């Protein structure tokens, strides 16, 4: 991808774009600097749930087309009920399971024996706010213990006047956070 090393430039007033840019950069740092393997299980879960919901509604549409109402009444009611239950489940899933997690990276055990250690990144940026909160959580593969550190910074620390992301500055911050967790780990 030729885009790979081009500086990220966004509309500095667009809160969504700010968060996306910082999240994407953090992902890149974790993947490249630390050789972590990204795990997509969380996202895949969400994708699967949404796909099922959409299939439900498509099935209802097809059934009603082939067997017009009122013959399709039972099937329709089941599909509609399923769809809205699924929508509820997805909301719960997003809120509790994902909860702002945008990256899960696995640190493979060098010997290849023990289960992987897990590094989770979560972030939040309120609408119209400039306070970007980044939280890194470490879950030991063997010990199953978790440790996390979080840092709130203003987005102004990482973007210049034109909206270009100052990758080096951000990289230093993210690495600093992660290394502080690793240091903790070694100390214990």
């Amino acid at each position, binding site marked *: 991808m030729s*885009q790979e090393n081009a500086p*990220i*430039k*966004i*509309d500095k007033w667009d809160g*969504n*774009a700010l*968060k*996306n*840019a910082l*999240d*994407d950069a953090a992902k890149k740092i974790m993947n490249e600097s630390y050789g972590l393997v990204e795990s*997509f299980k969380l*996202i*895949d879960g*969400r*994708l699967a749930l*949404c*796909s099922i*919901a*959409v299939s*439900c*509604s*498509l099935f*209802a*549409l097809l059934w*009603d087309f082939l067997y*017009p*109402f*009122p013959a399709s*009444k039972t099937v*329709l*009611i089941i*599909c*509609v009920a399923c*769809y*809205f239950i699924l*929508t509820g489940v997805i909301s719960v899933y997003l809120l509790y399971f994902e909860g702002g997690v*945008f990256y899960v990276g696995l640190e493979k055990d060098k010997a290849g024996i023990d289960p992987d250690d897990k590094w989770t990144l979560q972030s939040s*940026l309120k609408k119209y706010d400039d306070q970007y909160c980044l939280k890194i959580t470490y879950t030991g593969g063997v010990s199953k213990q978790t440790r996390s550190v979080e840092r709130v910074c203003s987005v102004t620390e990482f973007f210049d006047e*034109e*909206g270009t992301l100052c990758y080096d500055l951000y990289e230093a911050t993210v690495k600093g956070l992660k290394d502080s967790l690793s240091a903790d780990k070694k100390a214990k």
Partner: protein
Amino acid sequence: TMGLLDISFLSDLKRMNKRQVFYQFLSFGMIVSSALMIWKGLIFVVVLSGSMEPGFYRGDLLFLTNDLEDPIRAGDIAVFRIKGRDIPIVHRVLQVHERDDGYVKFLTKGDNNAIDDRGLYAPGQLWLEKGDVIGRAKGFVPYIGMVTIVMNDYPKFKYAVLGLLGIFVLLNREA
């Protein structure tokens, strides 16, 4: 500065990986599905003609119940479909004939029509049966159905709305 905004707007999208792109399409699918499910779930029809004036006008939205237990009586406003045609008709029940074995047949007429609906029924059909009836009108909201009429009369409008919605959702990346 318009040029700057264009580039930065799309750069958000270029950085998406396969999964995120798939999720954009799914989001769009979810919105369309929600609308679809509400449409099918609430079960309503739009009054397309003026044959029931002054009770219902063209463009009114009718909510239906399909209570199989509650027998249809003369004077009820029934929504039914003629075999071979998609479009449901909303007219008042004029006559109801019941047999001892439970077989029921109806004759309907639009309030604003001069003659009963026999001219609308399928060739050779003189009565409606229970299976033709979709439900009964139980409540209505005036004018809202006009959107559906416009969408039916001008199909391009429907595609334009869907297209705009699609563009908005697909190109707007949620964090």
